[in-house]
């Protein structure tokens, strides 16, 4: 049954994963997300649901364990933070190329390089523009509360299995580390081998006699067939873009000035919008929940109504490029960000809105 708890975002991911009926978690410690594996190990789900939890020797091994587990039709996941996600990109590209469902969590920290353990949103490009090699896309969910950390485990797995594609929860150190009230979902049973053979007939489970073999691979040396494969991926991506865009609007209806922000930035932007309203400025917030597929259509519509848009991100200006593509020059779009683990305040955001958009 449902339970109300107070916990960190990272802990919520772990509890939600067990309750979803996840078959396996494979990870490697890295700040600021280590509580995910620590919580799983403390909960010992192998004794209750049969979930496998394994500390791998590296992020590379962990993502390849996910590749193997996903290949056998299991609900498998990994989590890491920015430098660790860079190591996983090869595996993510293979998973996308083999059209396997899985869940990857990135609790972002500041970069580049070893960077800092403080929160950042500088992996937006890496996540939504590819990161690994080849023309692939990653379904990307950006939680902005501990509740969404829990909820997006189920949503991420559901989308991953619906489209046979990897999905990522793109959080940051703030969402991972902060504590909030969270409603945990009821426990769901794990899938049986029979259910997996029925629901995922492509899965490697051992070839039963009249069946054809299943081979999980991203390799195809015939370029004509490889182009066909790529066209199939692209058709799937267009379908996801048409059906799975998610966003939230806050005081947008009469807004003259629009803030666009995801994850922890959106939390601070909500407050900035309230401060603006107190001063009589008609500001609103559009929060993309899926970063890919992106909220291009709704932004295109707002471009006809608002006087200016400010993209507020904990990076040097990444999502702002997608906002500009969406509005296609119809309205002024500027970026405001802090870098390297520094977080803006709502007042700083309001000042930036005035300086960059309202009174430039």
């Amino acid at each position, binding site marked *: 049954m449902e339970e109300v708890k107070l916990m960190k975002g990272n802990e919520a991911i772990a509890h939600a994963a067990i309750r979803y009926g996840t*078959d*396996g978690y*494979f990870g490697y410690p890295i700040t600021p997300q280590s509580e995910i594996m620590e919580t799983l190990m403390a909960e010992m789900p192998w004794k209750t649901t049969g979930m*496998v939890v*394994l500390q*791998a*020797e*590296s992020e*590379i*091994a*962990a993502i*390849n*364990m*996910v*590749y*193997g*587990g996903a*290949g*056998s039709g*299991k609900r*498998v996941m990994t989590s890491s933070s920015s430098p660790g996600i860079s190591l996983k990109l*090869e*595996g993510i590209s*293979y998973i996308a190329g*083999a059209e396997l469902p899985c869940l990857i969590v990135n609790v972002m920290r500041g970069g580049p390089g070893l960077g800092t353990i403080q929160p950042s949103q500088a992996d937006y490009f890496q996540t939504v523009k590819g990161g690994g090699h080849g023309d692939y896309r990653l379904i990307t969910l950006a939680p902005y509360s501990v509740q969404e950390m829990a909820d997006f485990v189920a949503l991420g797995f559901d989308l991953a299995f619906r489209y046979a594609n990897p999905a990522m929860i793109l959080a940051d150190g703030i969402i991972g580390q902060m504590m909030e009230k969270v409603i945990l979902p009821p426990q769901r049973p794990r899938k049986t*081998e029979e259910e997996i053979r029925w629901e995922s007939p492509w899965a*490697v*489970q*051992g*070839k*039963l*006699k009249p069946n054809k*073999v*299943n*081979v*999980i*691979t*991203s*390799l195809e040396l015939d370029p004509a067939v490889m182009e066909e494969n790529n066209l199939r991926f692209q058709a799937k991506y267009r379908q996801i873009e048409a059906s799975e865009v998610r966003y939230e609007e806050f005081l947008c209806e009469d807004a003259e000035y629009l803030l666009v922000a995801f994850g922890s930035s959106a939390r601070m932007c909500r407050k900035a919008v309230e401060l603006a309203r107190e001063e009589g400025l008609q500001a609103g917030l559009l929060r993309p929940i899926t970063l890919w597929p992106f909220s291009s259509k709704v932004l295109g519509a707002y471009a006809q109504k608002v006087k200016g848009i400010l993209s507020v991100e904990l990076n040097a200006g990444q999502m702002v490029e997608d906002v500009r593509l969406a509005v296609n020059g119809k309205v002024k779009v500027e970026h405001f960000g802090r870098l390297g683990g520094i977080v803006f305040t709502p007042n700083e955001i309001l000042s930036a809105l005035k300086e960059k958009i309202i009174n430039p």
Partner: protein
Amino acid sequence: MELTEIIKPENRVYGKPALMNDTPMHYCPGCSHGVIHKLIAEVITDMGLEEQTIGVSPVGCAVFAYNYIDIDWVEAAHGRAPAVATALKRLNKGKMVFTYQGDGDLAAIGTAETIHAANRGENIVIVFVNNAIYGMTGGQMAPTTLVGMPSSTCPYGRDVSLNGYPLKIADLLAQLEGTCLVTRQSVHTAAAVRKAKKMLRKAFENAMGGKGTSVVEFVSTCASGWKMTPVQANQWMQESMFPFYPLGDLKNVE
């Protein structure tokens, strides 16, 4: 005696293994891979594991192993097969999971995955084909290339001061608590093939019996990479490879 009197099922002494497909093999003449594939196919059938076995193929010459043995396969990224197999086995406990890896895959790029899977004692079989050269990419130096042995990236022979020493990875794996069987075999004669098959079966039995990681190394030929005829390659393997990589069990826990 007429020919029709001889060609009868009861007189049959040899046949293609049931699990070997009719796909024409891409392996070069004189290469050991074909015989090793055959042994794996035979052991799976002999043990009745056709419906439970999942193979993990590498990057390298054996990347297309899934085209030749009629079982479920996962094709892994270069070096990552033991990690892939770890999850396959842990999530599907009753299944038979094995990796098939070359020397570059297992002992260079995948050293960490190999050592840690073996050190955890994963209940899998690692089939290791050591021909001391990168075959697929055209004859570059492998971690197991012998000192003085030429390759396209050490054209004047492996120079220790430049390239370090050949890695006896099986000796290293035999030191780990997680391995129950580490054996070095070859398929250059009928007797060697029979012996290798026996050890391969032992390895498969260990995996199904939950005894830990079994590693079966095959010291192998690469006539193309070595720039030799198949006969020369077999000869050279016995003269040059066997002294450095002696055949036999390095570890066999009963």
